[in-house]
């Protein structure tokens, strides 16, 4: 991963904007931002962003590669799409934020213990295993992501929640063994693996 990072630094030198254009989902829109700030003002978690979208766009143009990619700002995106529908220049901001987060992950630059990154990874692995999400395992993995004892603490804190969900038949302890899934998960895995390969190849060739 960090090899790729080094390669990218080498390839783009100080032109981070170009790197973003070629490697980040919807990245070629970044140059079209007119710095009005409507996105930042529309974000429900705006206060939690060290650098709201408007600023990230400016930082990309200013070549602040390290600061942008190691930031946990874009991980604050709740995918509410408010910025997208309000942007006067129609930038797909939500997607660009997702794209930046993914690119940072690809390069291994995500801050350690970034909870949304961890959750995203757990989610993806959980889903890929059987083709459908196993909610119980997803929840438990999330509780236990920081080790066993923290996991017990988390589980206890959410014990009441779990009990009432079970009572409402909206949580099933039996999911821990087996659970829902598609008929032939390996087939799906093959498809996705292929998609991954195509994408990796494309990104490596990009400049």
């Amino acid at each position, binding site marked *: 991963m960090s090899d790729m990072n080094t390669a990218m630094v080498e390839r783009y030198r100080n032109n981070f904007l170009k790197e973003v254009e070629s490697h980040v989902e919807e990245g*070629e829109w970044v140059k*079209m931002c*007119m710095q009005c700030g409507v996105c930042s003002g529309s974000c429900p978690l705006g206060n939690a962003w060290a650098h709201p979208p408007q600023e990230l766009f*400016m930082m990309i*143009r200013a070549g602040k590669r390290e600061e942008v990619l190691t930031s946990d700002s874009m991980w604050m995106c709740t995918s509410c799409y408010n910025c997208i529908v309000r942007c006067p*220049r*129609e930038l797909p901001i939500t997607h660009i934020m997702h794209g930046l987060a993914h690119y940072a992950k690809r390069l291994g630059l995500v801050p350690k213990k970034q909870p949304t990154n961890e959750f995203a990874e757990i989610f993806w692995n959980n889903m890929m295993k059987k083709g459908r999400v196993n909610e119980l395992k997803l929840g438990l993995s999330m509780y236990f992501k920081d080790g066993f004892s923290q996991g017990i603490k988390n589980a206890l804190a959410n014990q009441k929640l779990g009990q009432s969900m079970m009572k409402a038949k909206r949580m099933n302890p039996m999911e821990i063994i087996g659970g829902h899934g598609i008929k032939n998960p390996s087939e799906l895995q093959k498809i996705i693996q292929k998609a991954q390969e195509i994408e990796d190849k494309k990104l490596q060739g990009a400049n």
Partner: protein
Amino acid sequence: MSDEKKFAGYICTGCGIGDRLDAGQLETTATRDGKMQSCKQHEMLCSAEGVKMIRDDIDNDGVTHIMLGACSRRAKVEAFNFTEVAMTRANLREGVIWARPDEDELTETTQEMADDYIRMACAELKSMNIPKPSGEQGLNRNILVVGGGVSGMTAAIEAAAAGYSIHLVEKTGSLGGHAAGLYKRVPFRAAAPGVGNDPHAQLPDAEEPGVDELIARVEADQRITVHLNSTVTKTSGAPGRFSADISTESGGTTTENFGAIVQASGFKPYDAAQLPEFAYGKTPDVLTNFELEKLAKEANGGPLKRPSDGKEVKSVAFVQCAGQRSQKEGHLAYCSGFCCTESIKQAIYFKDQNPDCDTTIIYSDLRTPGAAGEDFYRAGQEKMVIFTKGQVAEVSSSGDALSVKFKDLILDEDTEMTADLVVLATGMVPNSGPDPYASSESQEEMSDEEKEEANAAAEVAVSVESILNLDYRQGTDLPQLKYGFVDSHFICFPYETRRTGIYAAGPVRRPMDMKQAMDDAAGAAMKAIKECELAAHGAAAHPRVGDLSYPSFRKEGCTQCKRCTVECPFGAINEDEERYPLFNESRCRRCGTCMGACPVRVISFDNYSVETVGQQIKNVEIPDEFDEKPRILVLACENDAYPALDQAAMSGEKISQWARIIPVRCLGSVSMSWITDSLNSGYDGIVLMGCRRDEDYQCHFVRGSKMAAERMSKVGDTLESLNLEPERVAVHEVAITDIQRAPQLIQDMADVVEKVGMSPFKF
């Protein structure tokens, strides 16, 4: 037309007037008190039938003066269009029934109001004459255009296309002005409809400047006579009969007559030598936008090279607002409006030549006017011009490169970048002559500090060389609105300067780009054409368009005090050989400020005079002091205050039953005698309503409202001599939108009268 006057009154009973008022009594008032020779009622006077009744009386019975007791003089003007007679209107609808509540106990005061308005209209009519042409008029379809740049050429082409003959005077040896130096111009048209916001959208490109074509069209036009290396050395006369001396450098002079004039004298580039902080003059690699254009033109699509060492430019920074939008000494306080799109255009020069050239525009507020503006901004973004919101503090030379220190306003940090070349987006300085009022009126109310600042700004802005050399008593050139730009009101009446028949176009009027200058020139040309035609009929220009009255004075009464010549906002009045005022009818806008200024009351219009208003004031019935029915005289400007009161009545606002409202052309026309006479004859309060008069004035005659306020500041002496309370006279600024406030101001005066008591002068 015989000199015999025949007066007829008409009372409309429509719109509820007949239900609310005793029309029979109004008729009696008109004939008995108002001395109308006849008075007729009609249930809908503005109907075809009603209009025909009046028309027949004029045509068959020789009626010359008509009084209409109906709606406001601002309503139904198309129906009541009797140009050959003198006409007054008693405002019974908006002025009385709509302004008063329909309640039984108020019937009496409402009827009194209506009777008074009938008396006033009749009295006004009695002192009115039908305006007659002065004989000064003549049709002249020649137009003088001063300035051979894009604005001047466009004005000439537009006016010529309409069939007018043009003399185009250009100071230099060639046409084209600054635009002749352009490599490309900012696009004129927006992206095609339906073009999206995506980063690959088809957006407008910079265009060929088109100046050569413009020059070719001017040269080919039979109606346009071009005078190169020439200036206007003398301009005299008035619209319809201007005379101008056009002199060449070598000394030859021709004299031509013109109906109207367009001044398109353009701008000068701001002197960047005043920007040492940006290293201008210290290194040749810091250029102004004007100089960069020259460089681009020379490169002609090839690589742009650094002036210092001929190295190909690999990085360039544009500094927006250089020496502009700044209060610093020597800087321009305003935004020149063209420089953002100009920098985008120039940044694209670099990108088109070499996409890897680092091209940064540092701006604090990007403003891209014009149809293509926003699309062109996007075009720059598509080509990866970097737009950085920041404030540049310093440019310095550091070894091989330039260093630009700036504050990034988005990231809120002080930072620095290097560049091979720095372009300063400097502004426009109007190329106007000396302001006739530079040292007097504009600084009257300034503090010393402000004056100093203004003088410093004036030094930057104003060229001392006259452009028009007007042979006017009030200065050689067009009065300036702000920062040296010649105009009289940017928003409400563009192109109209304070010299009637002389229109400003292009960057001498306000800073603008080429496309705007061309649109501006077309607008000014239209105005000039219109003025040629109006002057031919002796009719007024804006805002009393078509008014045939004009001021005249009784020579035997005149004391040659010169006040009228000084106070005329439009420089319409010269002096004759005997030092009497010389009115130039077609320079006059008919505001009556001269009439209000005259201490001996010798200036009048046929249909508006000290007498027409004075008689209205006299003919209001003043009830006995013990009737407890005060009378409040309201003199309301016909442009804003009077319509605001009409609108108030239409919207259901109520106006005090004690008020008697008289529209005046401008508060500037108010004669002090009206004030003293009304105080002497028992009015309890006086309210004057004019337009806003400060720097951001709304006065349609520019200075009238301010003049009035100055004169009224001395009314205290009169009040004192009569032993009356000073609060009985109030002067207010009223906007056309003040529909709640205007009636309230009258009510406030009613409350004052209630407090201080009735006037003791009721006889």
